[in-house]
Each structure stands twice: as C-alpha cells, then as structure tokens.
C-alpha cells in the first residue's frame, strides 16, 4: 500500500476538519496518523493514510483543494499537461 501525506490549512470554525475527514471516509480512506495545530482562523492539518492508486489520490487532492474551507493543499494537484501525460503514460 502506498502511504500518502496530505497537508492543508482549513477554516475549522466552518467545520473544515469535518469536511476533510468526510471526504476521506466517503472514499474509503482511514487516517493512520493525524496532526492538527492551531485554533485560530486557519488550522494546520497533516493526515497520513494509505492510497494505492496515483490517479485516485490525485482526484482526492483536487476535490479537497476546491473546498472553500480549505486552503493550500499539498501536494499541489494542479499538474501541467506534460506532467499529466507522464503520469498517464507511466
């Protein structure tokens, strides 16, 4: 199983953590390790979970990235065309 790390900042007073965990659970991913820090407007979150498939991870990143309560998702899901082609052809 490939271990993945997703980090982001989120507006937790808007339920951002709930939204992030819901996105993972709905897709069948269970966090192995989670670290949250900060109580202010933007909480920093790091989640480690298993996800075998690159494409599935990429789709999850894009979904999380577009959530309004979530800021600065890493790794960045915006691939260039050449990177996208490299992944598809690999």
């Amino acid at each position: 199983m490939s271990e993945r790390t997703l980090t982001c900042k989120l507006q937790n007073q808007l339920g951002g953590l709930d939204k992030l965990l819901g996105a993972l659970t709905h897709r069948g991913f269970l966090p192995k390790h989670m670290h949250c820090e900060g109580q202010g407007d933007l909480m920093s979150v790091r989640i480690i979970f298993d996800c075998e498939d690159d494409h599935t991870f990429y789709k999850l990143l894009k979904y999380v990235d577009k959530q309004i309560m979530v800021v600065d998702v890493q790794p960045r899901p915006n691939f260039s065309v050449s990177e996208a082609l490299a992944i598809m052809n690999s």
Partner: protein
Amino acid sequence: MAINQQKQMASASLRPAIKPVDTAGSALASTVRQPQELTGAQIFLQALVDEGVETIFGLPGGVILPIYEYLPDYPLEHILVRHEQGAVHMAEGYAKATGRAGVSLVTSGPGATNAVTGIADAFYDSVPLVVFTGNVASNLLGNDAFQEADIAGMTRCCTKHNLVVRRIDQLAQAIREAFHIATTGRPGPVLVDIPKDVLTAMATYDPSERQIYLPGYANPEHFTDEELDTTLEILQSAKQPVLLMGGGVITANASEKVVAFAERFKIPVASSLMGLGGFPNQHPQYLGFCGMHGHYWANIAIANADVLLIVGNRLGERQTGATSRFAKNAKIIHIDLDPSTLEKNVDTFLPLQGDINNILSALLDKTESSEAQAGFAKSMATRNNWYQAIEGYKQRKPAKNHQENLLTPELVIEQLFSHMPADAIVTTEVGQHQMWAAQRFNLSQPRSWLTSGGLGTMGFGFPAAIGAQKAFPDRLVVDIAGDGSFQMTLQEIATAVDYKLPVKVAIINNGHLGMIRQWQGKIYTRESQAVMTSPDYVKLAEAYGAKGFVVNHPSELDAVIKEAYAITDRPVLIDFRVQEKADVYPWVPAGGANEQQWVTSDDATASQSPQSKANATNPQTIKPNKDGGFA
C-alpha cells in the same frame, strides 16, 4: 336543503380566504442607506434586498418567526409552500430558468431536514441556491432541543459551502458571501444556518460594507497559449471530431459561443441530458442527446470520433457508459471551470481549466490567422465524409410506438412538444417519461429544459415548474411527470393555486413505477413492488381549485392539450392514461459501452438471461436454486 348542498356549504365556510400576496414594503424597506441599528431579522431581510433578491420560497416555523415578523416591511415576495422540499425545488426551478440564485427559507429541525433532498439535488446539478435554515438558540445547541438539528453537519457533503452564523456581527457578511459563492465559479447550493438568538439580537447594519473573506475560494483559469495552439492543431487534423456539451454550457451562458465555435470548425455537436436546449435543436450540426437512453447515432458518432471536445460536461456514467470503453478511438480535450471534474471519470489528453467563453473565444481568435485558415481548408475536405457517415448512423432507430386506439406515452410526449410555443419551459420528473421527453425535446433556447440529472430526484419537476413559472409568468411551463414522481410533491398544487401559477402537469399515467418495471423485466427476473395506484387526478385538481383533464384515447389529445395550454389563471393537471408497459429504447445496459446500445426491444430480448426470459413469459418458473438463492 339536500344533504349534498349542506356539505358544500359547510366545507366552504371552513376554507379560509386566500390572502393576496404581500408585495408592498413600508417606509423602512430598502431605504437603509446609512449604518443603522437593526435586529438580526431586519439585517437578514435587508441583506437579501441588497443582494437583489425578489422572491423567497419558504415555510415559517418557530425559530424563524422573528423574520416573518418583519417580512411584510420589505419588498420581498414570499411564496408559501406546503413542504420544505417543495420550497427548495421551487428555488431550483427559479434558478435554473433565470440563472440567478434561488432562495429558500425554512425552519429548524424537520424543516431543515426536509430541505436536504433539494439541496443535494442542487449540488449534483450545480444550481445556484442559497438556503437559509433557522436553528434553536445558541445556548441550546447540543442539548437535543425541540426541533434542533445539526443541519450544517448533515449538509456538509452536499453543499458547495455552508456555515452556522454564531454572532450577529457575522450575519450580513455571511449572507454576502453565501450569494457570492453560490453564483460564481461552478454554481452550487450554500446553506446558512441562523440560530434564533442571532435573529433577535441587535447590531449595526452598514449597507456600504461589502467585505468578503474567503481565503480558500478561487476560480483560477489554467490554460496556456501553447495548449490552445495544441488544441487548434488537433482540431485541424481531425477527420471525425465531435463536440460533446453539457449543462456547464448553459450555466456559463456560453451557448452562442459554442454555436459559433462548432460552425467555424464544422464539428457535429452532441449533448448530455443537462445540456439540452444549449444548442439549437434544428441546427444541421446537432446530433442530439447521448448516453444510456440517448440517440443511437449520437452514441455511435462519439464512439467513432477521432477527436472529442468536451465542453462544460462532467461525464457522469449515465452518459459515458462504461468509462473504460468511452470514446476509445478519440483524443479527448476537456474544457471545464472545475478542476476536480477534469480527469476524474475519463482519461483526457488535454484538460483546459477555465471559463468556456474565454477558452472558446481565444480559440476562435486564433483561427483568424492565415496559417489557421490554410489548416482549416485542408481538414474541411474530409468533414463532409464524416457527416455522411453520421447520416448512415441515423438509419438505425427504435420503431415508433404509435398504435391505433392505444394511447402510448411516446405519442403523448410528442404531441405535448408539438403544441408548445418556441419559448416554452419544460420540466420533468425522473423515470421513463424523462427519457422519452429528452429524446423528443425540440426547443432551442437555453434554460428551457429543467430536469434533475445528477441526483435524479422524483418529485423535482412540479415544484421546479412552479419556480420557473414564478420567474416567467407569461411563458408556458409544462411539467412532464410520471404518476409515481408526481405523487411525491403534489401537495404543491395548493401553492400554485394560491399564487395563480398556471403550470401544466402532464401526468404520463401508466399505473407503474415504469423505469423500475422496465429494469425488473429485462435485467432482473420478476416485477416486484412496481405497480402503483393513483387518485382520480381530475377530482384532485378540482379539490385544490385547479383544473383537471383526463385523456384515454389518441383522438382526444389535440383538443385537450390546446385547451389546457390556454388556461392562464390556475394550474392544470392532465391525466394521460397511457399504455401500461412500454419500454424506453435505445438503452445501454448498465455497465455496457454506449455503442452496445439495445436499439430495439429485440436487441434487449436477445441479451436476456434464459431465466429472465422464462420468467417474462411464465412467472411460475421461478425456483430457488440449491443454495437458496434465485437464478
């Protein structure tokens, strides 16, 4: 006095007079130009006025009574519904028909949970909605208080955004942000939950304050000049291109641009269910509707395309069939504003993230150069061959189900369309009638086809039609409904009567959950719980103060439809008592590739399992196997 006369007089005295709609505002309304101390309820209403809201679909409840106390003072028309699901679907119909945000106001607890289906429906179809829910006072949150519900938690996964307003000083900004989020980028529903104490608190409302704080919200465009050049090269060298458009074209108001683009490149255009109306139906380049029950020639053209340009389309699996086999011969270019839609369901050669209008305009600009013109001249030489091939595909189609002395659903729907003016609006429920209507849809204006595509919500069409009729009181609005679907939200007949909204409901009444029966008959082994009774719709209409018709024979169609369409002061129900068991064709079996469509019932029968075939003719042959299951 005869007993019947006595009963009539008694019931008349119990029926309250319908009050006229409150539209006039007091001196307070819309005159707040300077910062002013207001209650939360007044701030709520004033903020809606300042957002340009004219109509709210709602139902009062305990925690939102402070709003209703002040509502008559504001220039907002409130449409009182009979069920909160109806309120949200009405707001959806209003939003889909106009492109503006639809607004609903519901109370806490069951009021809020009743709205969830409509909210999820709007989420899956990218409809701009702002739904306001009341909640119990802040000090009661978490106490299992009367009519308390964590509606923000419940709708976190089916809203574009949601929030609970914790303090009065957050209220105005929350409303501004809600409308901004709902109507920009890829539209969607936003829920704003307001505890009762926020509505009764006092704060200063400053109409000049327009701050929005959304650090996580952006709608960037990611396409480069190099990618546009690549797109142009691909299109110029294409021999069998297809443009596949979706509902995003209509949402983006990009229909004219798509037409211009398709004409410049002479590309045939197919549409998803949600894109119908976005490309003129009578245009010679229009292929029609593709997908599970789409036109055979549209599906085959896509399967044989060497270049597939996808525009504003999320490629749901009802449209693509088996995604692993979708358009396998094509180089796919996908244009969409939402990055999470790109490369989600289908592998794409070139994703272009951005507004459809901007990308197509940029491509059209590039075609002006002499180099591009030369490239085009070369590729256009083969285009006629492609159109000839498509004409060949069109020879294969299901037989018309027109039978003398039998009212068939297909004939009814064809007649409904043939009597419509060009600016009619059609809504549908979900099921067989929806697919027959999509196949026969012949209007050519965007926002004239309002249906529930993603969530597939039975009961959507009638309240949506009410919302659309509210937005366009002078246009003909027809809801094409199944008898199963209509019974889910028919209580809103009262709403349509109260506000004199002359929606026409064409009930394709076959006494079944038709699509369920169709699947059970061909895919499963027997019918189960698919037979459904209906009330007498004519008597029901009259009981509500609407007008009802019943049609039993093809010869009655013309006169009834004309008379129904001419009624302008109340809703109309037309009970079309159609053939009980007709199937929708063409039909792609679930999990199959689109080019493997069953075009006729013979194709489907040939594919049935032996057990299913046997059961179709003799249910007594159903026997459990030795493990206790069924074949």
